[in-house]
């Protein structure tokens, strides 16, 4: 049985948990995979806040990246 050639897998940390993506995955693709609306989350990559949502489409993720995806929840 022939197996499809595998893209190199990158290991990330997303919200404190390991997460594997294919090489070349963009931030927009990751959010889409996680079913998150980019307008509804704030992304911090390696402690740097990504303020420009227009860059999500072109920003490719790197092996070892640590991402925090946060949003507003109920609080006092």
């Amino acid at each position, binding site marked *: 049985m022939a197996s499809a050639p595998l893209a190199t897998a990158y290991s990330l940390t*997303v*919200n*404190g*948990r390991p997460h594997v993506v294919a090489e070349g995955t963009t931030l927009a693709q990751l959010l889409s995979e*996680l*079913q*998150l609306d980019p307008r*509804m*989350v*704030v992304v*911090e990559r390696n402690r740097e*806040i*990504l*303020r420009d949502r227009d860059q999500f489409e072109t920003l490719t993720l790197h092996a070892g990246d640590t991402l*925090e*995806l*946060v*949003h*507003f*929840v*109920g*609080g*006092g």
Partner: protein
Amino acid sequence: MTDALAEAHVLATDPIPDLPFAIAGRTFRSRLMVGTGKYRSNDEMVRAIAASGAEVVTVAVRRVDLDRTKDEGMLYHLDPQHYFLLANTAGCFTADDAIRYARLARAAGFNEWVKLEVIGDQATLLPDAAATIEATRVLAAEGFKVMAYTNDDLISALRLEDAGAVAVMPLASPIGSGLGMLNPHAIRAIKQRLSCAVIVDAGVGTASDACIVMEQGVDGILMNTGIAAADDPIRMAFAMRAATDAGRLAYLAGRMPRREVAVPSSPIAGMLGS
């Protein structure tokens, strides 16, 4: 109809006669600010907040729960066009953490305001004044409008104003305690000595607590559990709104002096002869 009678009819339907409520140049339509935590359901929260009449609504910054993406964030429930979303740094125990949360909140893109909390102790949730002052200085320099949660301590409040806070938010009593205002003297001292807005935050348990807070002359009040944990949060939200207005009006009206002895309200003269 006499002029006085005509005026009385108008007064009965007038909005509350008060000065506009402004912080750092921005005018807000309600002196009651409310939190969004601890409600039994989002539907109940939305209706209670509407009933409260509040414009400023606090939210917390947390990780998206990747296991339950259907458990949507607050933006799916509250319209940011209608409410002023005030992000908090609840849960932060260091100045650095609070600064990080504040920056994340600002990146959401709604405003540059933050309700700064740096908690000093897990058991009491009392604020760490020194760390709050430090974080206020950093955030104010970055252009944040900092509303700083703190103790009912005048010196901490003065230092926070010096550090650049646009509002100082002394507690009535510990977060979630519902004990009401424990030290009205301290709250009045803070209001009298500070130039920035003073908003009492935390500890209000029922409508009379809110009323007594506002009677001290503070600019506003922020509460969450007092509404959310009531048996009927929507009714309690109405009550808190009325109490906030009542306390504010009573403060503006100026209360009568307390007396140790009775003074009759009806004339002594004109009583029937025996």
